[in-house]
C-alpha cells in the first residue's frame, strides 16, 4: 500500500482528536483526545520515516511516547486533584475566574 495513505490517516486521527478536545466536556475525555493527537503525530512520523528511508522519524516516535507518558502522569495528577476537591471533572464547571 502506498505509505502516503498513512499520512491521510494520521491527519484524520489528528483532526478527530482536535475536534474532540473542542467539543467534549469531560476533562479526562479531552485529555484522551489530546493523546489521540499525539499518536496521530507518531503515525505521521513513522510514515514519513518509511517514505524518506531514514530512521529519524522512528526515533522521534519513541521520544513522543515517553513525553506522552510523562504528560499522563502530570495531567492525571492535576485532574484527579481537581476532581477530589470539586467532585466534577467537567471543563464547564471550572469557571471560578470568569468575570
Amino acid at each position: 500500500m502506498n505509505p502516503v495513505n498513512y499520512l491521510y490517516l494520521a491527519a484524520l486521527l489528528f483532526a478527530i482528536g482536535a475536534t474532540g478536545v473542542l467539543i467534549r466536556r469531560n476533562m479526562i475525555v479531552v485529555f484522551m483526545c489530546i493523546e489521540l493527537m499525539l499518536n496521530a503525530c507518531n503515525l505521521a512520523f513513522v510514515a514519513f520515516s518509511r517514505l524518506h528511508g531514514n530512521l529519524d522519524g522512528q526515533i522521534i516516535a519513541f521520544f513522543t511516547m515517553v513525553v506522552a507518558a510523562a504528560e499522563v502522569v502530570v495531567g492525571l495528577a492535576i485532574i484527579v486533584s481537581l476532581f477530589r476537591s470539586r467532585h466534577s471533572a467537567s471543563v464547564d464547571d471550572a469557571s471560578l475566574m470568569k468575570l
Partner: protein
Amino acid sequence: MSATAVHSLWTMAAEPVDKIDAPKIEYGQLAPTLIVIGAAVVGVLIEAFVPRKSRYHAQLFVSVVALAAAFAAVVALAAGDYGTTKARVAAMGAIAVDGPALFLQGTILLVALVAVFTFAERRLDPAAHGNRVDSFVAQAGAVPGGAGEQAAVKAGFTTTEVFPLVLFAVGGMLVFPSANDLLTLFIALEVFSLPLYLLCALARRKRLMSQEAAVKYFLLGAFASAFTLFGIALLYGYAGSVSYGTIADVVDGTVETVDPALADTMGNDALLLIGAAMLVMGLLFKVGAVPFHMWTPDVYQGAPTPVTGFMAAATKVAAFGALLRLLYVVLPGLRWDWRPVMWGVAIITMLGGAIVAITQTDIKRLLAYSSIAHAGFILAGVIATSEDGISSVLFYLGAYSFVTVGAFAVVTLVRDAGGEATHLSKWAGLGRRSPLVAAVFAVFLLAFAGIPLTSGFTGKFAVFKAAAEGGAGPLVVVGVVSSAIAAFFYIRVIVLMFFSEPKADGPSVAVPSPLTTAAIGVGVAVTLVLGVAPQYFLDLAGQAGVFVR
C-alpha cells in the same frame, strides 16, 4: 557431529555490525544546562532522603548554588568567545552555542535566581501552628479544607518539591532557545512545561482557583504542544530531517530533490506551509500572543504569585528565543510568507492586550493582559528580520523579565485576611499607607508603560527602531498607539495608589524577609540601570545578535 557443524547447516555468520560511533558531547559547552538539571536531580534525592525539617534549607541552598554556578558557566562561555567568533553547534547538532543562546540563558538563569528568592519567602503568611509557611500548599494531595489538609498544616508540612520543579523547568528553558533541531525543541518544550503545570496547582490560599488554573494551563498547553508536534512531523516530511540547518537548506532550494520517489513529500510546499504554521502556532501559544492568549489571564491569576512571576518572565524569554531561532535560522527563506501573518498577529496582540487590560479589576489579570501587549511589542522586533531585530528583542526580553518578577513580588506583599489582596479596589490609597512599596510598584508600572529613564523605554525604543528600519513602519505606529492605551491603565493604578483615600478595611503591607526584598531590589536596580545607562547592555545584546547555523 559438533554443535557448530550442526548449526552451520541452517545458519550462517551475519555480516559484522558496523561500529556505531559514540556521540561526541561537548560537556563544557553544555555546562549551564547540565548543572541545572543535575541540581534538580539532587533536589529530588533531597526530597527522598533528607529529614523534613531540613529539606527547605537544603533545597534552597542547592537551587541558589546551582543557578549561580550555571550563570557563572554562561559567563565563562561568553568570555571564551563562544557567543561570537567560536559560536558552534554542540551535541551532534542538537544544541547551538551562540550569542543569542548564551544571552538568553544568562537572562533566564538570573531571573530564575531572583524568582527562587520569592519562592522561598516565608514571612508573609502568618505562621501556622508555630511553623513558618511559604506561598505553597502544605500537601498538594490533600483535599482543600479537608481533614487531611488541616493535619498537614498542623504538622508543618511544606511543599519543598517546588525547588526541584523550578530547576527542571529552568533546565528545559535553557535548552529551548538553543535547540538546533526540532526534536530537541519539542523535548525542551515539554521539560519546561510539565513542571510549570504542577507549580500552578500548588497555591496555599485559594486552592480551588489554583487547581483550576493548572487544569486550564495543562489542557490548553498539551493541546498546543500536540499542534507543535504535528507541525514538526510535517516539516520532517518536507525536509527528511529535523535538523535546523538541513530544513533551511531545503527551504532555500539549495538541496535538489534527490529521489523521484520522494516527489510527493520532499520539498512539497503544502507540507512546509502547514507544518511551519502549526509549529509557529505552538510557540505563539507559549509567548501568549493573541489569538492564542486565552489561557494567560486565568493561569496568571490562579497560580501562586511567585510562580506567576517566574513563568511570566522566564517562559517568555525562552519561547521568544526559540521563535527567533526558528524564524531566523530555519524559515528565513519563507519570510515573505510568515511576515504578513506575524504582522497581523503582532497588531492584534498589541491592541488586544492593551484594550482588554483597561477593563480588568484584578491586579494579576491586569498584569497578565499587560504581558500579552508586551508580547506584541516584542513580536514587532521579531518581524524586523535584521540583526538589529535580534539584538533589540534580546535586550527587551532581559529588561522586561526583571520588571515582571519584581512587579509580581510586590503583589505578594499586599495582603488581607484572605491572603493576597489582588482586587484593584483594595489597592486604593496604598501610597499613603506604605509609600515605599507603592513607589516601587509605580516604578515597575512606569517601566511597563515605557516611560523614559526606565528599562521599558529603552527596550521599546530599540524594538520599534529595529522594526521601522526593517520596513514595518505601520506596525510601529500601531505599537505607539497601543503603548499610549496601555499607559492609561498603568497610570490609573498609580493614581489609585497615590491619590485616593485608603479604605478602612484595606489590606496591610507585609514586611518581607531579605529574600523578597532582594528580588524587588534587583528588579528596581535593573529597571533604573537599563533605563539610565543602557549602553553597555545594548552593546552586549548587539554583540550577541548573530545565530550560528
